[in-house]
């Protein structure tokens, strides 16, 4: 058997597109014609199918731990397994870094939500988990290293994502020691903007952003006066100072911190 034929015979099996028996027949012939050695090899071929399938789960279950947990609670393990298989049929692995292969899962869930009877918040949860991962691994920006100098600016890892459900508080309650009866089964439907960033210790953070925080970040990003940004959301100079200090202390804003009254 030439290499090209070998790969054609084994590839679909390893990718989860065909079964073990089919691959064993293509590689080792019909069961009745196999030598003792071939019979063992054909049987052990299944090990590689299991290994490759396990890696497909691993590629999603580290990044999308809460998404998986919620889906299994809403449905069951078999529906999660089916989703993993279908996802990789639609989006074959493409990257040497295993988790990077989960990049399209939020969009895939959004497309599939209706057919799979998934609530819309589950798609948002996957998006939140993906951006949490992206924030954690984002490349380092030398401007963040020169932290206390230069003009006020957003940290390089800052990302904002709008959701229709209040996910951060729900996730916190879900992972806390709160009594089960105070944990909601689903996040409350309420528009919120979630802010992702890496702090100065390089730890990943996310939190719901307040209107004043959003106004300040927008003004910093666009180079607009901070005082007018605060006024637009009805904030006082004192509130602006506090917010600037909070954002800077958290590592969301970098550079030289001005006094609001001077900005």
């Amino acid at each position: 058997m030439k290499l090209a034929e070998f790969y054609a015979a084994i590839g679909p099996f390893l990718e989860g597109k065909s079964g073990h028996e089919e691959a064993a027949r293509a590689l080792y012939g019909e069961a009745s014609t196999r030598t003792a050695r071939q019979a063992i090899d054909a049987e052990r071929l299944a090990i590689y199918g299991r290994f490759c399938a396990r890696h497909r789960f691993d590629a999603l279950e580290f990044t999308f731990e809460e998404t998986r947990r919620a889906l299994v609670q809403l449905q069951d393990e078999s529906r999660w397994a089916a989703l993993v298989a279908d996802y990789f049929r639609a989006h074959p692995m493409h990257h040497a870094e295993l988790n990077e292969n989960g990049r399209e899962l939020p969009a895939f869930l959004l497309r599939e939500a209706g057919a799979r009877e998934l609530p819309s918040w589950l798609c948002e949860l996957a998006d939140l988990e993906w951006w949490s991962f992206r924030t954690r691994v984002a490349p380092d920006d030398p401007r963040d290293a020169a932290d206390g100098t230069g003009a006020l600016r957003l940290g390089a890892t800052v990302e904002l994502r709008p959701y229709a459900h209040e996910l951060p508080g729900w996730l916190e309650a879900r992972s806390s020691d709160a009594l089960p009866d105070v944990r909601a089964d689903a996040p409350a439907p309420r528009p919120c903007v979630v802010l992702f960033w890496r702090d100065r210790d390089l730890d990943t953070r996310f939190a719901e952003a307040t209107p004043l925080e959003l106004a300040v970040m927008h003004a910093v990003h666009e180079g607009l006066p901070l005082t007018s940004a605060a006024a637009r959301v009805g904030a006082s100079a004192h509130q602006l100072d506090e917010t600037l200090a909070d954002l800077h202390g958290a590592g969301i804003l970098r550079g030289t911190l001005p006094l609001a009254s001077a900005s």
Partner: protein
Amino acid sequence: MRIAGIGVGLRKPFAHALLETDRRVDWLEVTPENWVFFGGGARRMLDACRERWPMVQHGVSLDIGGLSALDGTYLDAVAALNAKLDAPWWSDHVCYSSVNGAPLHDLLPLPFSEEAVLHVASRAREIQSRVDGELVLENATFYAHMPGGTMSEADFLCAILDEGKCGLLLDVNNVYVNAMNHGPRDSDALAIARAFIDRMPMQKVRQLHVAGHTRVGETVIDTHIGPVIEPVWELYRHALKRAGRLVPTLIEWDNEIPALDVVLDEVDAARAHAEAALGAAAPLSRESEKP
């Protein structure tokens, strides 16, 4: 950067503890897939370890036996880290790890055929023209013979090393696992494994790996779980005697990873086995390894 003595694989579960230990570790092996695409804490950890220990890369995504085009992004990342590490070599496995251009994230066995030798060797030469540092290939485990094979595993491996101008990473545990899985029933797996090691070109061996494994039914799986068992230590001593030198040795413990001290007990054990095998030829003290 000189790689010598006994090292461990840099694994995230014990990376912080590793930086704090005062126990002896001579060098580290890093799996590029788990580090080179990451900024933030992972990058900081890698840099901190790089300042303290000599490091070499040991990849799992080279896909040297595959038909897919070589992954340029991956090779560029490996090349960049190699330059940063100033490493004398970098390694991956004699296997394939993708089909139809899609990575499978596993180390999959090739048919032991002349065609596969030429294919792997050709890709090895291409890779070495793109990445500085000697490419070193590891003998992989295989649970099933792939159809089309016409050679023994030892002949296959030696031919690839010759044709591809590569070094060898001799994984002693893999030799044992393959002997256990493919030797005739009731045969002496140790004798089979020793014979395999005797066929290897020891002058080309840059590194040794030792690890634990797991029996699952009738098959022994290369899980890198648990301490190294005595038969593998025996093979390790045999390999060192054949080499006549302390080949840089790595303890692999990649799953069900225990507290760092348990892994470092294996490092100490490897050092003791090396001393038993080589006696005065083993440069075992820190001082004796200083240039």
